[in-house]
């Protein structure tokens, strides 16, 4: 294969990777159900990528007993789907959790990171929010009434849209 062809193939490969990456996230943003999730902040500062706020949500820690389940029903690194009740203000709260995505309702995909008794910690891939440099602290100081607007698509993938103050 001559160098011209190799050059073009690699160029197309790069476009496919970058385009695919953008398309994957845009699909969730454009087709996903909008939900507001209440936050609990942790700590900012990504050394290499500017300011970002680490977010924890009320749905990050799940009391399985309240859902008639047990912590021992789950293992670390399990993929789970958390079904949300969405009220008239678009605020989402946990209604159920399972290892398969339900056919109805809005469910967000997560990974079990920690199990303590009947409480499990779940990570959803939306725990970082990037902000302009040196504004992370200001946001953190006002996080009592901050909700995160996320888009959740039919496969359970979630993407952060914005922070909303209530």
């Amino acid at each position: 294969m001559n160098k011209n062809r190799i050059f073009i193939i690699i160029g197309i490969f790069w476009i496919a990777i970058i385009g695919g990456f953008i398309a994957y996230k845009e699909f969730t943003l454009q087709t996903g159900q909008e939900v507001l999730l209440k936050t609990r902040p942790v700590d900012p500062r990504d050394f290499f990528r500017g300011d970002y706020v680490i977010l924890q949500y009320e749905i990050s820690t799940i009391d399985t007993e309240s859902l008639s389940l047990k912590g021992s029903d789950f293992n670390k690194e399990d993929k789970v789907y958390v079904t949300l009740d969405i009220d008239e203000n678009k605020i989402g709260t946990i209604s159920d959790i399972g290892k398969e995505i339900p056919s109805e309702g809005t469910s967000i995909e997560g990974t079990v990171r920690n199990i303590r008794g009947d409480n499990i910690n779940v990570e959803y891939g939306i725990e970082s929010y990037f902000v302009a440099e040196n504004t992370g602290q200001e946001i953190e100081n006002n996080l009592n009434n901050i909700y995160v607007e996320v888009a959740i698509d039919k496969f359970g993938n979630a993407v952060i849209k914005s922070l909303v103050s209530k």
Partner: protein
Amino acid sequence: MTNETQINEWLESKTITKAQAQKMIADVNERGKEEKSSKLITAISIIGVILLGIGTILFVASNWDQISNITKVIILVGSTFAAYYTGYLLKYQKGQSPKVGAALIFLGTLLFGASIFLIAQIYNINANSHSLILIWLIGILPLVYAFNSQPIALLSSLLFLTWIGFFIFRNGRFSEHIIAILPTIYISAGTLLFSIGGIHYFKPELSKIARIIRIIGIKAAMISLFLLTFNFFSGYGGNYWFSSPRVIANLSSQTVTGIVLFSAISIIGLFVNMFFNPAKSKINTIENGTALGVLGFTLIFFFFPVASTLYTVLFNLIFVGLVLFLIYVGYEKYDQKMANMGIYWISIFVFAKYIDFFWGLMDRSIFFLVGGIILVLGGLAMERKRRQIKADLTKINN
């Protein structure tokens, strides 16, 4: 390579005439100047592209709020393809500036990574996501072979090792258990790179790529082996037990699977190198056999821990043996870099063990005085040995 000394020897033995000797000396000097100038151009080009890359990334970062997301993506992705295309033109199409072209292609791979991270940032993808490193690696790997590029091979090897670290710490937790098993993971990863690098020797045109990958593999394994010479990583220490079976139980199944998978592929690769390498040299067999031995012993240590310092002692012996072997291999293969690596590691090892052993035993002032004397004398001895090896290798090469 022919040099002036050799030409004069030929002249003295009347193998060549005086006119021929003068012509040859002139050619050698001219070639020497060309090589120096070529290296200077390469160095300046690489510095230039690194500055271009940093400038592009900083421009986007510092105007984060002023520029829209789409504009940011266009600037960075546009720069990526501009660097890639221009580099390709200069190296292959026009052909008049191959070194600058190669440097620009390398810049393209760096900007490709920056583009991935920028897009991740725009969509607020988790900051510690290991998959971003993996995507970067997958994106640039074909260029290693398409353009037979050593810098991109180096970058790919480093990205592979970085990805492992990001994967291990993907939960953001730095527990003792995780830190304690890092050397084992990186020995299996380093051996994997070493074996994959060795397989590249099967194609002569990939020999330079093979060497780069193998050296990175050796370095990763040597650093990990060095850590295993300390009690913290291989013995019983303090409040925690690495020797406890709970350590493996606490690891994720993916981590243990990773160690087993890397080791299995490494073992296959090392056997292939041992029995099917076209070189079929004794050194090749010993190198791959040694790598197998180190990997095998590390796996035994990992899966069958013992509540004592037995493994620590054994790892110290293995490390010293390996370093001396590196110097021997460097000598046998006329490889100055490998011999230097061995000398470098002996120095680090002696210095670290001196601190580890004597820090608590000696008065501070005596510790520093004795340490200083050992370092100065050791440095003189090492330098003399290094020059001797260099002289011997130069003589053999000529």
